[in-house]
């Protein structure tokens, strides 16, 4: 590997010269260079280094996860404690974040995950990533541990480490208000943790602008372990793109498409919650810890009621016309919520609703608000509670274990107090569940594992692999454990006129594949679209703004990259960068001992549906599934048995500098 940046070996000496290097930068005024700097923050030594990144490095790795994975591979030692100072936490905006086009607001947070022991990686949208970019920052790497709580203040002048003892324990809204007052910048954007992250809850996330979340993989706990309460940022000006006229043209193209694309329009009208009614009608709505696939009270907790009775207005992200977020209010004072903390998405409605047998939308909306204030992941919270409910109903947990709480499916009253207990690690049940369902199952024993629905110890999202087999492959193969955006979803390719079949002809996915197929055609769809999703994350693409889920086609995305950077990159070149990122994920997990035996699915999916229109049908075949996983390895250029990237593949992708990590 070319030594472009500090490595573990020479980091100390570079960090020791931090102050001089930072103060040597001239202030950013007016237009901000499109390509930002890489910031190394060491909280133990209280130092900051800003370093230039060579132009060819951006062209090879783009931004987002791709830009920083090489550093994380070198800097995080094997055997590192995810909650120890040796873990490195990266905040990395997508390459196009901050450019004035819709649909690129995202940044990725990465570290070794305390939930999975594998790569921790989670995206969030909002306004934070554009602000970082406009402060001249391409990415921030945080290592060490502050002696007492701190926050980072990021501007065009550099990065300042400031004391945060007085806001430790404060909810994110209070913390944001105090930080904005202290820095004298009411428009500063903040990403922060709540008490979930402070208390090292294994599935704590990070929230920005109160309603956008890097929810998964417990990265908020890593932030808490470093005594880092928040990062606040304020840009110095607009990004200086190579061809501003072309960018404006492409902005208009994407915005016009947003008005006509039917999927985009549905996102605007109903947001993601429409998935409740759709999944229930299809007979695949996770219900009662997935023991059931239809929920009799779905109409009480679905999109129709949310829209008619609770929606205040749609919310959105930087430069985006879609506004898919649901901002809600509740009239019942018992469940009153602060609208600024956002409303429940489909995942939350299902995880904390039908999956727990909860039929009160008021309870789910309040639960969503509590999770957002405490910054804990609603999917893992809902799934951990439903796991505990299954254990309770099976007699594996008793009233003594729950301190008298009737932990049965459908007990609406159990949810809110339990979220409080988990976020505070309070009481026997809160302490048991705050490390996630997989750890809880090991502690409970007596066969509690049978109720687990985790992959690599992360609770799976609300999509049933028995109706979308490629989704099952995503769950198994995602480097971060159960995840539903590692690749595209099967229904996009169901027919020759489906959105994906049309949109992805240019990357060879122009043939219809049944959602239930598990043969080579399906594996090819998952493999190629997983490379595409590597690219999407590197660019900061929001899944809800780009094909196939939404409006912006691939050629427009390529046009935006070139207009912003001045490159003449082709789609194959960019897709190759996505493939490179995907292989770096795999290398990271290999280095940290995560092996192919963890590329599996929960046993539930190898049994047929228990009820509903699909009762008795659609069990996945374990041998066929294992064969498909091995075929994915082969298509990715990894050893078909071990899943480890081969020397040839590393050389082919220009990653020969990482061969020593095999």
């Amino acid at each position, binding site marked *: 590997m070319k030594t472009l940046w500090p490595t573990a070996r020479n980091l100390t000496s570079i960090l020791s010269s931090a102050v001089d290097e930072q103060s040597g930068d001239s202030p950013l005024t007016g237009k901000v260079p499109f390509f930002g700097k890489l910031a190394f923050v060491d909280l133990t030594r209280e130092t900051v280094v800003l370093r230039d990144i060579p132009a060819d490095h951006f062209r090879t790795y783009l931004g987002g996860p791709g830009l920083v994975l090489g550093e994380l591979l070198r800097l995080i030692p094997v055997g590192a404690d995810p909650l120890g100072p040796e873990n490195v936490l990266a905040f990395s905006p997508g390459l196009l974040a901050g450019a004035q086009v819709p649909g690129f607001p995202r940044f990725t947070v990465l570290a070794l995950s305390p939930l999975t022991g594998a790569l921790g990686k989670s995206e969030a949208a909002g306004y934070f990533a554009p602000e970082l970019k406009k402060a001249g920052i391409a990415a921030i790497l945080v290592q060490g541990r502050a002696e007492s709580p701190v926050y980072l203040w990021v501007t065009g002048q550099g990065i300042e480490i400031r004391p945060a003892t007085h806001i430790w324990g404060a909810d994110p809204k209070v913390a944001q208000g105090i930080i904005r007052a202290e820095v004298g910048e009411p428009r500063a954007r903040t990403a922060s943790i709540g008490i979930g992250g402070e208390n090292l809850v294994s599935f704590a996330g990070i929230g920005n602008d109160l309603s956008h979340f890097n929810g998964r993989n417990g990265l908020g706990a890593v932030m808490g372990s470093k005594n880092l309460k928040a990062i606040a940022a304020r840009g110095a000006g607009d990004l200086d793109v190579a061809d501003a006229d072309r960018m404006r043209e492409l902005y208009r193209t994407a915005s016009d498409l947003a008005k006509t694309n039917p999927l985009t329009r549905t996102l605007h009208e109903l947001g993601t919650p429409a998935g409740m009614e759709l999944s229930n009608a299809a007979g695949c709505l996770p219900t009662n810890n997935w023991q059931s696939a239809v929920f009799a009270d779905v109409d009480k907790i679905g999109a129709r009621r949310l829209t008619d009775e609770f929606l205040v207005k749609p919310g959105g992200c930087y430069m985006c016309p879609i506004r898919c977020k649901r901002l809600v209010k509740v009239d019942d004072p018992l469940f009153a919520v602060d609208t600024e903390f956002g409303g429940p998405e489909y995942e939350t409605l299902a995880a904390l609703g039908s999956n727990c047998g909860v039929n009160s939308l008021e309870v789910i909306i309040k639960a969503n608000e509590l999770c957002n204030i405490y910054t804990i992941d609603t999917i893992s919270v809902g799934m951990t509670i439903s796991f505990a409910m299954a254990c309770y109903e099976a007699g594996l947990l008793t009233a003594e274990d729950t301190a008298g709480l009737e932990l049965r499916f459908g007990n609406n009253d159990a949810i809110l107090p339990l979220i409080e207990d988990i976020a505070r690690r309070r009481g026997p049940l809160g302490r048991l569940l705050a490390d996630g369902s997989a750890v809880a199952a090991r502690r409970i024993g007596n066969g509690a594992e049978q109720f687990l629905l985790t992959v690599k110890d992360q609770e799976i999202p609300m999509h049933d692999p028995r109706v979308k087999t490629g989704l099952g492959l995503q769950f198994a193969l995602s480097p971060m454990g159960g995840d539903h955006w590692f690749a595209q979803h099967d229904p996009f390719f169901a027919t*020759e006129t489906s959105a994906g079949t*049309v949109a992805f002809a240019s990357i060879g996915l122009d043939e219809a594949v049944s959602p239930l197929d598990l043969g080579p055609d399906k594996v090819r769809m998952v493999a190629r679209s997983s490379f595409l999703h590597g690219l999407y994350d590197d660019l900061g693409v929001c899944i809800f703004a780009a094909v196939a889920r939404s409006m912006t086609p691939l050629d427009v995305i390529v046009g935006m990259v070139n207009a912003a950077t001045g490159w003449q990159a082709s789609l194959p070149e960019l897709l190759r960068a996505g493939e490179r990122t995907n292989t770096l994920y795999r290398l990271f997990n290999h280095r940290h001992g995560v092996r192919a035996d963890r590329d599996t699915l929960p046993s539930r999916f190898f049994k047929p549906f228990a009820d509903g229109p699909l009762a008795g049908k659609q069990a996945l075949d374990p041998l066929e599934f294992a064969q498909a996983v091995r075929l994915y390895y082969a298509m990715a250029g990894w050893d078909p048995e071990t899943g480890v990237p081969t020397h040839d593949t590393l050389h082919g992708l220009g990653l020969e500098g990482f061969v020593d990590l095999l």
Partner: protein
Amino acid sequence: MNLTVVAHAGLLGPSAGAKAQFSERRDLEFASAEVTVVQVLQKVGIDRGSVGVMLVKGEPAGDEDTLADGAQLDLYPFFGGG
């Protein structure tokens, strides 16, 4: 024969001048005595590729299933991911 189509969750836009609803209902009349699901989709102008779930009396229906006089066809868009 007469049929009713109920398209849910934005699959069919509102009738002219009407406010968008979660479920849009269309009453249809056909000259033939036998109509397949796909023919109904063509008549209301919904692309098959955008439909995820098709139900008759709560049971999944296939493209070539025939519908009886007076039947109601419920249509949901496919759910790509939340």
